């Protein structure tokens, strides 16, 4: 087997392990009600921590200026999501703002 193939399989084991580990029944771990309540916040917390850096960072540098189309598009998306609660409107309207601002600057 060549080295690339071995690396790919090792990487696959790593990602699978991180996904599967806590789903294993035999893992000696019981989550109390407090931990469960804490974990109920994981969805919004993780997704926010993923999208915020996309809006603010460009090539690893923070960009807080009026010419940052990601920020305008993000604001547009947040308002649309709040008003419509619809994923297609949110991506659509946010996308239009994003493209509009990027072509303006």
């Amino acid at each position: 087997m060549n080295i690339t193939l071995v690396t790919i399989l090792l990487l696959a084991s790593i990602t699978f392990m991180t996904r599967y580990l806590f789903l294993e029944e035999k893992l000696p771990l019981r989550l109390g009600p407090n931990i469960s309540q804490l974990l109920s916040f994981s969805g919004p917390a993780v997704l926010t921590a993923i999208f915020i850096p996309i809006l603010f960072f460009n090539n690893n540098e923070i960009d807080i200026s009026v010419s940052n189309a990601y920020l305008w598009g993000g604001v547009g998306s947040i308002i649309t999501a709040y008003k419509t609660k619809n994923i297609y409107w949110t991506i659509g309207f946010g996308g239009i703002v994003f493209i509009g601002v990027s072509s303006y600057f």
Partner: protein
Amino acid sequence: MIKGATDMLPLSLAVLPWGVLFGSLAIQRGFSWIEGQLFSAVIFAGAVQIVTIELMAENTRYITILFMALVISSRHFLYGLTLREKLSKQSLKWRIGLGFLLTDELFSLSGHRKSYASKYRLYYALGAGGSFYLAWNIWTAIGIIAGVSLPDLTNLGLDFAVAATFIALVIPEIRTVPVLVCVLVSAISSLLFSFYGFELSLVAAASVGMLCGYGVQRVRS
């Protein structure tokens, strides 16, 4: 199953640019088409794939590559923990299948109180996760076929679609003060941690956000 796939559709479409980017990157960095496709078929994790294929192309030390993959993947521990109560009771077949498919996207559709609790809900998740898997692999294949004829896509702002999708999923969830606090704190800490180039910024920021949301909930009840 169909319902799961249709609910996943906007998310599957939002990662189209990423999948194509990854496929073309694999070819541009000198990997064969089989290797490129294999990344998506068995690793099935966008950020891990894009980062590691760059590192492999630069002949980075083996251990560094594996460590980076673990760091980027570490947020999945949180997903597993969150879904443990529901999914660990299911049969091995479901746990392995849905565990393999447990991406950010599938997790973001797992917030329902009854998720994974019934056969219907399990098939829903299979439809969502499975269709996302198919889409990711098709987008990768398109990128591989386009290969070198594609320009460098990284600077075209294609990642905005992913951000907008996650905004669409998070904002409607903010129905209580603790969740609002959780989201705001997570946002501010992710900015701070990323600004200082902290490797585990994502997981750290999410954890701080969760703790603050939980704290506020405790104080108020």
